[in-house]
């Protein structure tokens, strides 16, 4: 702790901070541009100048950049002193010489840090009267709009993009008064994290291109705290709605999860919500002109007609979903009965998920939070391309390689926030990161060592590493070369302070997952606080897994046995999970098929009935992320037509069937209590957010800002009288501007605003300290904790079977754009999803007389897939990789035996 005097007042600050951070924590208004809490200080913009005095007799003082000045006990500074004030106003004046002053047509307007800082410094009149520079803007792809004229040369964009996110295709060009930030030539930004430029750039140079199509000013959104549904990490988001359309996704800070950043799938995958293909009313299939057609029906018709199928004495099979909330899955389970509830995963997927859950529930290794990944100082990844599967985890692991070199910089006496000298001291040094995978990954550029092999090969490496760390752990039969690598990795993990083992299901191999567990457990048993971190496939995979239950194949068996007439499929396109023939069989075995979903999926299209479910933006629910963190998503807006949460539809059916009471589970909270009572594993989800009864000063928390415009007129095309405010019985939030918007608990915070701070930078006003938790604690609860003294035995090593028969092993490669069902239908994401391909090692291809680009046919399980060949010089041998989950691609159960033939061209 250090006491410093600011304008004569003694104030408490933290040691080792810079003065700007101290001022921010004290709530003072010191303007700044180039400093960013995640990027540190470089002293580039000169905006944060304050006066520093030698002692109390020094009346003169000198200007210092607060972001570059270390706080020392007893130091005396002034923020209010007139020379520093003039200096700050002048800086803005100069920065703005070339700025176009085009706020009214700028998408940043109203949430612009430059506007805020300009006002803060009191620079009210332009003095520059000459011609301004104009720049040519670039087309940077579907995500980011570029408007270079608005640049103030703070360098945040390139520092974020290159230094933090590891990109290589955005840079600063030219010099003095014509510095340009962009690419060498037009083209799609390569980084999977480019969307953060929108929030990092303090002005309107980089803005959200998808938002441009349906632009809305910051104060005109309806927002609520929500959770990204496009992978299992559960990044916290603030979706914004107006006129019934979801318009954009912004980051919602949570130190324990995503911090300041989102990936581009999470930011730009939202437009599936606005799709006009979605069912908006209950649908019933009828034959019209000999063709099956879905025709809308009313809610009452649907409930009375469908409700009958569930009345006492009849049996229904329910298939849940890893992309549906806990509540939705529970409601289905309650409707059909626990014994008739199936998880909605294939047998193979279920097995991989159970393998992970068994490890994290019974083992001694702790799963770090997503945010904590940054703190590890030696990382081993077994079998995952994290960037494509768990993007923000990859971004955080990328930061982890700086920890060991940063420690060196610290030992040299360089404060951590002093970014340039720290980076100079780190130079090209990187901490240990080892990646074993089937094919190259997007983190390879910072890896100490990569190793490409079949899943069995990866598992064997893993078992060998564990055996080096703890000889009690079963040994694997590996070659001398692999043994040497295993030893190198074991040593690196053992000599780290906080080693981390990362794995997941992407290799489709239980052995890989178990090898990861052995390594982490071996470290724990050697008294290293090792972390274990598993990627999971979907937004609620782990939540679904915690229910426990059988898989889709079992559901088919149950239907085959007879006795069940009805099949209910919850938010699940079965055609993406098991072979089409099995789905066809399932759908034909049941007399009645009901799908509850927000997507008009291939499965829904074949159903007799479809009930229109709500997306994440249109309903409340709880998701459990990959490490078992339960997080609440609050409804953002009221959807069109009969769309409502799946759990509510299922509750209504339960009441209609006579199984439940009409007045039962009307409110979200009562429903949650029923869930928790039935499944104690979920008891802590009640703490994920305050109940609907929560009030601040007797008032609800508004979803709209106090500046929300046009309320009396926005629906005038329908009726001239102002429409009433919809009540929200499910949460303490209101669908209006009214309420109390301050002192909001973090779990209910969606809009971070305080007078004078309208931009994304306002977040520092809501953190307990710079980069700290949100005031009152970060939202979300951990449902899974390790068993430190667990004596759970090690897993047996795999027998590697390297026999090379004629068949190839087909394995999936996941793509951030295209492999995930929901985001893939959003146009901007779809634009970047890959064309189908089959990828082979170049030597494997050459041995078969095949070349990159050749048209080939891949035969798997009797299916013939015509595609184009890609070759790679380093991937595993004997393996053919196919992109996973692309739209319109046939389902393949990986790993699969495949044949590859040159396509016959006619």
């Amino acid at each position, binding site marked *: 702790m250090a006491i410093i005097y600011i304008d004569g007042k003694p104030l408490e600050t933290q040691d080792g901070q810079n003065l700007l951070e101290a001022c921010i924590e004290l709530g003072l208004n010191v303007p700044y541009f180039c400093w960013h809490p995640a990027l540190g200080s470089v002293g580039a913009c000169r905006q944060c100048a304050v006066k520093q005095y030698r002692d109390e007799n020094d009346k003169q003082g000198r200007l210092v950049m607060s972001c570059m000045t270390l706080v020392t006990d007893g130091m005396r500074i002034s923020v209010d002193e007139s020379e520093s004030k003039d200096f700050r106003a002048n800086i803005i004046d100069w920065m703005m010489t070339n700025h176009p002053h085009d706020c009214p047509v700028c998408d940043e307007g109203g949430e612009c840090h430059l506007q805020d800082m300009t006002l803060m410094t009191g620079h009210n009149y332009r003095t520059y009267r000459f011609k301004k520079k104009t720049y040519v803007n670039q087309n940077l792809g579907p995500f980011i709009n570029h408007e270079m004229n608005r640049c103030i040369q703070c360098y945040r964009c390139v520092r974020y993009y290159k230094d933090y996110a590891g990109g*290589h*295709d*955005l*840079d*600063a*060009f*030219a*010099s003095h008064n014509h510095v*340009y930030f962009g*690419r*060498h*030539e037009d083209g799609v930004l390569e980084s999977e994290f480019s969307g953060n430029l929108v929030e990092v750039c303090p002005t309107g140079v980089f803005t959200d291109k998808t938002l441009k199509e349906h632009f809305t000013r910051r104060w005109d959104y309806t927002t609520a705290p929500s959770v990204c549904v496009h992978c299992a990490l559960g990044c916290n988001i603030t979706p914004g709605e107006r006129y019934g359309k979801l318009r954009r996704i912004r980051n919602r800070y949570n130190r324990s999860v995503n911090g300041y950043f989102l990936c581009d799938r999470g930011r730009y995958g939202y437009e599936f919500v606005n799709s006009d293909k979605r069912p908006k009313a209950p649908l019933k299939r009828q034959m019209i002109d000999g063709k099956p057609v879905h025709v809308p029906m009313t809610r009452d018709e649907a409930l009375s007609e469908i409700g009958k199928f569930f009345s006492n004495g009849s049996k229904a099979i329910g298939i849940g979903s890893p992309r549906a909330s806990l509540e939705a899955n529970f409601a289905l389970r309650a409707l059909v009965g626990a014994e008739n509830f199936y998880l909605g995963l294939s047998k193979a997927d279920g097995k991989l998920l159970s393998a992970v859950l068994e490890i994290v529930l019974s083992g001694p290794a702790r799963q770090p939070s997503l945010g904590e990944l940054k703190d590890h100082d030696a990382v081993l990844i077994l079998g995952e391309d994290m960037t494509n599967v768990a993007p923000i985890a990859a971004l955080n692991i990328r930061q982890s390689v700086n920890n060991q070199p940063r420690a060196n910089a610290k030992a040299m006496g360089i404060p951590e926030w002093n970014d340039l000298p720290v980076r100079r001291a780190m130079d*090209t040094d990187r901490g240990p990161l080892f990646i074993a995978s089937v094919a190259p990954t997007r983190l390879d550029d910072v890896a100490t060592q990569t190793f490409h092999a079949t899943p069995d090969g990866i598992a064997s490496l893993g078992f060998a590493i564990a055996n080096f760390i703890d000889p009690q752990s079963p040994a694997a039969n590996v070659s001398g070369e692999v043994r040497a690598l295993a030893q190198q990795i074991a040593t690196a993990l053992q000599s780290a302070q906080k080693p981390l083992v990362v794995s997941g299901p992407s290799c489709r191999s239980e052995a890989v997952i178990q090898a990861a567990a052995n390594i982490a457990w071996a470290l724990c048993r050697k008294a290293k606080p090792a972390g274990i971190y598993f990627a999971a496939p979907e937004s609620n995979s782990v939540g679904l897994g915690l229910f426990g239950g059988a898989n889709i194949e079992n559901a088919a068996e149950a239907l085959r046995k007879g006795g069940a007439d009805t099949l209910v499929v919850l938010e699940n396109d079965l055609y993406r999970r098991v072979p089409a023939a099995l789905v066809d069989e399932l759908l034909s075995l049941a007399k009645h098929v009901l799908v509850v979903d927000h997507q008009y999926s291939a499965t829904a299209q074949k159903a007799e009935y479809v009930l229109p479910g709500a997306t994440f933006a249109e309903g409340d629910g709880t998701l459990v992320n990959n490490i078992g963190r339960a997080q609440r998503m609050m409804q953002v807006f009221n959807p069109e037509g009969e769309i409502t949460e799946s759990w509510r539809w299922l509750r209504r059916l339960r009441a209609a069937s006579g199984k439940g009471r009409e007045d039962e589970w009307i409110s979200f909270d009562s429903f949650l209590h029923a869930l928790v009572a039935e499944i104690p594993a979920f008891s802590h989800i009640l703490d994920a957010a305050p109940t609907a009864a929560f009030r601040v000063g007797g008032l609800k928390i508004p979803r709209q800002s106090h500046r929300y415009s046009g309320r009396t007129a926005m629906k005038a095309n329908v009726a001239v009288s102002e429409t009433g405010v919809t009540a929200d019985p499910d949460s303490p939030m209101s669908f209006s501007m009214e309420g109390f918007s301050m002192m909001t608990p973090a779990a209910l915070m969606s809009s971070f605003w305080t007078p004078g701070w309208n931009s994304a930078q306002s977040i520092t006003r809501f953190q307990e300290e710079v980069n700290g938790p949100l005031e009152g604690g970060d939202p979300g609860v951990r449902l899974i904790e390790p068993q430190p003294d667990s004596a759970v035995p090690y897993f047996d090593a795999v027998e590697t079977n390297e026999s090379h028969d004629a068949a190839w092993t087909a394995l999936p490669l996941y793509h951030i754009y295209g492999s995930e069902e929901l985001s893939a239908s959003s146009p901007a994401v779809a634009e970047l999803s890959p064309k189908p391909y089959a990828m082979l090692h170049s030597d494997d291809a050459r041995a078969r007389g095949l070349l990159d680009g050749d048209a080939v046919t891949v035969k798997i399980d009797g299916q013939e897939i015509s595609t184009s060949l890609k070759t790679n010089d380093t991937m595993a041998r004997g393996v053919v990789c196919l992109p996973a989950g692309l739209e319109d691609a046939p389902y393949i159960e990986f790993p699969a035996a495949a044949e590859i033939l040159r396509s016959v061209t006619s």
Partner: protein
Amino acid sequence: MLSDALKREIESHIHEPEHRAAACTEALRIVQRERGWIDDESIRDIAEFLTMTPHELDGVATFFNLIHRRPVGRNVIRICSSVSCWVLGYDKLRDALQKKLEIKPGQTTADQRFTLIPNQCLGCCDHGPALMVNGDLHRDVDPDRLDDVLNRYA
């Protein structure tokens, strides 16, 4: 494509294998010496040779005004536009040059003989106005006697 000779010469400026990019300014200078200017293809080739991306290298190339990212004439005139030369008659000299060559700063004459580029300080503030043609520094240039300077360059 970089010729083997060029590659060898660039290679001789690489002192630490993990810092190949540190030779980028030398590489740009060498390639420009051979080609007169740095075109996009050169950017891509040099970048690849130094394990940089074209974006990173172009950031360096555009930073220095001695590196040309557009074609230049056979001779490059850099006229000093810094404050000392301005006091000593930069405006007149520039106007005379523009009139004589019929080009503006940044342009090249139709016969490809001269390119005119303003340059902040040539380091002879005591002998302004100054200009530099290719490698030759001309001091105390009299705008009325420009031909004496220009005639030396074909």
